[in-house]
């Protein structure tokens, strides 16, 4: 009972975070809420599975509680992950995004699309130990949405995708929203 209550508290806390980026209404129905928490669970499993105990400068787990801890420290990271989840990114690609937010470098990122045939996203990350490389591949069309969050730059004239940053989503029917300055 105690454990169940703690889980529910964590779920409630996550739902509040959805409000901060104005996507809570997407998860208002019981089915969508169930789907949200199932995706978070699968995301944690994919994260651990890809890491395979390597750690390599990253936290070893990515549970719902880990997300809440990170939200207290760096809310925008959790906002970005939840925005990607709202765009129906798969648990595997969410794990890739989370590793990047926590310091992995995007070494390679490619997307290929063939009309009515295929949509494939591939990524290779270099983990913060700067030795371990992990590969991710998805043929889920919705994973292409992750490109919306990519931060583009040039370093000495060479292309760099520096990571992923959230899209600020304004609240419906209110003045333009700005990120919290607190």
């Amino acid at each position, binding site marked *: 009972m105690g454990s169940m209550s703690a889980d529910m508290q964590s779920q409630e806390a996550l739902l509040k975070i959805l409000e901060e980026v104005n996507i809570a209404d997407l998860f208002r129905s019981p089915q969508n809420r169930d789907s949200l928490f199932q995706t978070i669970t699968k995301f944690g499993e994919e994260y651990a599975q890809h890491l395979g105990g390597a750690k390599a*400068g*990253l*936290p070893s787990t990515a549970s719902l509680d880990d997300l809440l801890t990170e939200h*207290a*420290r*760096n*809310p*925008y990271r959790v906002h970005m992950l939840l925005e990607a989840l709202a765009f129906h990114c798969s648990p595997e690609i969410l794990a890739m995004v989370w590793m990047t937010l*926590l*310091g992995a*470098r995007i070494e390679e990122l490619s997307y290929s699309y063939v009309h009515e045939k295929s949509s494939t996203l591939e990524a290779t990350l270099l983990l*913060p130990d*700067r030795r371990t490389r992990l590969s991710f591949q998805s043929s889920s069309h919705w994973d292409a949405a992750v490109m919306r969050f990519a*931060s*583009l*730059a*040039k*370093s*000495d004239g060479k292309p*760099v995708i*520096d*990571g992923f*940053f*959230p*899209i*600020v*989503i*304004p609240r419906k029917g209110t003045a*333009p*929203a*700005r*990120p*919290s*300055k607190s």
Partner: protein
Amino acid sequence: MISGEDIIVDVSIVDPAVALDAVVRCVWRHWPDLVTQDGESGSRLPDYASIPFGRLPELLIYRDEESLSNWTKSGASPANANTMVHVLADAQWLTLVVDDPQEAVMQSLIDEVRQIIAEQSLRARWAA
């Protein structure tokens, strides 16, 4: 002694925590062994994943352990030039304090930070 030069970037529409995070990521590309310190308390910060950007108004980024040690021993001596970047962020401005903005790494760093903040500002404007 060396003196720092302030490079000021408007971040009025960008989350300052995101700006600080972006700066550290930029510096990390150039200084893979960087070490960070809380600019207010002087305490050493944990690895990148655990840095609480959302709670930090300023940080010091050293090129590596040796640079931190040298700055601790001799402060702003000429030998320590361009081995540390002081970064401050508030609701309006991001300030990078560097020794020589014309030095190659500093020049790249400043250019990249400006690009990334400009992109973040565009995102925020579109969202608004």
